[in-house]
């Protein structure tokens, strides 16, 4: 398919002897918003680490626009247009907000995102640009983490649990901004434990369990029950329909 941006095919990944992903295949189209849902330990974060280059697949391929990027390393993957907003935000504590954002520009990719655009998107971090990252609230830190990733001007943005530990009102605000971000034509992969939030924004949903894709489809075509069953691995009569 010509509009495929990223595809993983038969990916196996290990932490030492422990296998975290099994023969996993997913596809992300240009401009698409894909949600990865699943419980703790399902392999969602591992999958994002493999795509972003922080981990190498032991077998299988990760291809971006047809080019294999599996195992080339995170610093190379980001230059090709894939950026991860890591779990736990991971701001640089000894850098100011602005310096954190400027770190994203180190990838030296041209594009629509600049300091001014980030400050327009998140006005309340603009006021705190001289503060150290650690001095901000959790929600503001997440905005800086997203802004820093946008500064790399990615074609594909990977978001790992951006709502974790944040108040519902802040989460709503973040997801509203996500719509603005996507309006630029950027593809997004969102990892969430909260199925509701993820299926609202996503055009495609993959449910992972024990390192395997157990359900895929568009959120509108999947029933709440199907997703819940796949999520928890319940064997019920409804399973036959999926």
């Amino acid at each position, binding site marked *: 398919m010509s509009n495929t941006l990223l595809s993983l095919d038969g990916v196996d990944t290990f932490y030492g002897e422990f296998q975290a992903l099994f023969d996993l295949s997913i596809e992300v189209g240009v401009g698409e918003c894909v949600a990865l849902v699943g419980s703790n330990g399902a392999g969602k974060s591992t999958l994002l680490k493999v795509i972003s280059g922080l981990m190498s697949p032991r077998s299988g391929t990760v291809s971006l626009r047809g080019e294999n990027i599996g195992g080339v390393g995170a*610093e190379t993957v*980001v230059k090709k247009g894939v950026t991860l907003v890591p779990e736990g935000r991971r701001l640089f504590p000894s850098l100011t907000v602005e*310096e954190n954002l*400027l*770190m994203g520009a180190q990838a030296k990719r041209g594009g629509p995102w600049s300091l001014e655009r980030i400050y327009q998107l998140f006005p309340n971090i603009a006021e705190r640009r001289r503060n150290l990252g*650690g001095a901000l609230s959790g929600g503001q830190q997440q905005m800086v983490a997203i802004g820093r990733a946008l500064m790399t001007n990615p074609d594909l943005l990977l978001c790992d649990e951006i709502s974790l530990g944040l108040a519902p009102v802040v989460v709503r605000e973040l997801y509203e901004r996500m719509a603005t971000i996507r309006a630029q034509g950027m593809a997004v992969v969102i990892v969430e434990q909260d199925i509701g939030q993820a299926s609202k924004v996503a055009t495609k949903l993959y449910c992972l369990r024990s390192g395997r894709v157990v359900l895929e489809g568009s959120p509108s075509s999947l029933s709440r029950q199907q997703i819940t069953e796949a999520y928890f691995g319940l064997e019920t009569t409804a399973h036959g329909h999926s």
Partner: protein
Amino acid sequence: MAILEVIVQAMMLGGLYALFAAGLALVFGIMRIVNLAHGDFIVIAGFLALIVTWAIPVHPFVSLLIVIPVMAAIGYVLQRGLLNRIVGADPMAPLLVTFGLSILIQNALLQAFSGDTRKLQAGAIETSSMSIGGTAVGHYPILVFVVAVGVIWGLQTLFYKTRLGYVLRATSDDAQTVRLMGVDHRHIYAIASALAFAVIAVAGVLMAVRTNFDPTLGPARLLTAFEVVIIGGLGSFWGALIGGMVLGLAQAIGARIDPGIQMLVGHVVFLLVLLVRPNGLMPKVGH
């Protein structure tokens, strides 16, 4: 005037010690590596300047034009080729590797240059002085102090006012996450090491002009650098200057009382600081 003499002596010792310590603090701050061969590289810089001044008849200070880039290159290659393999592993590995390196360097220098003591000849500046209130104040101690302040100011400015500075600090914070910004942390580590070795080059040449040196002097320089870093704390590069001045002043006062107890007084003051302010006079805040 005794006080002025002590202060001048303290400025020279303190400046030199600050330069010994700055490189050690830089490497530890960014990579969490304690380089036990740090002192031996200071000695190498001295020998390198010696070779340069043998090969081409230039003043030792002019030899820095060659010694600084060569030492920086050694620092880059050492980090990239050897130390990067053990960064972030358990802290024992870098200790063992750099300890081995220290022994290797001392023996290699002994082989190449014998155990004879050497000195760089800097000419008139070594003994020239001016008179302040009837006391002869040497030009060289003032020069050492000014260079130390300049180097520390330069490092501080580089780290907090430039693009390379925030990339270095970010890499020190979180080497995994900088990779997500397209930064190769291995290269940044090597740049940090090259910077430290550039400072080592300056320290080595200033030391070799002031005193006799031989291949076995490294470990004592390392001990001094350690004491300075611990007295000053890891909060900023100015900590190295303050630590250096405290140690230099203690030794200068000790030497004034009795030349035999110069080092002892320095160590006692170091222990006192460790007792009262274990994180140093300018500790790292936050985190």
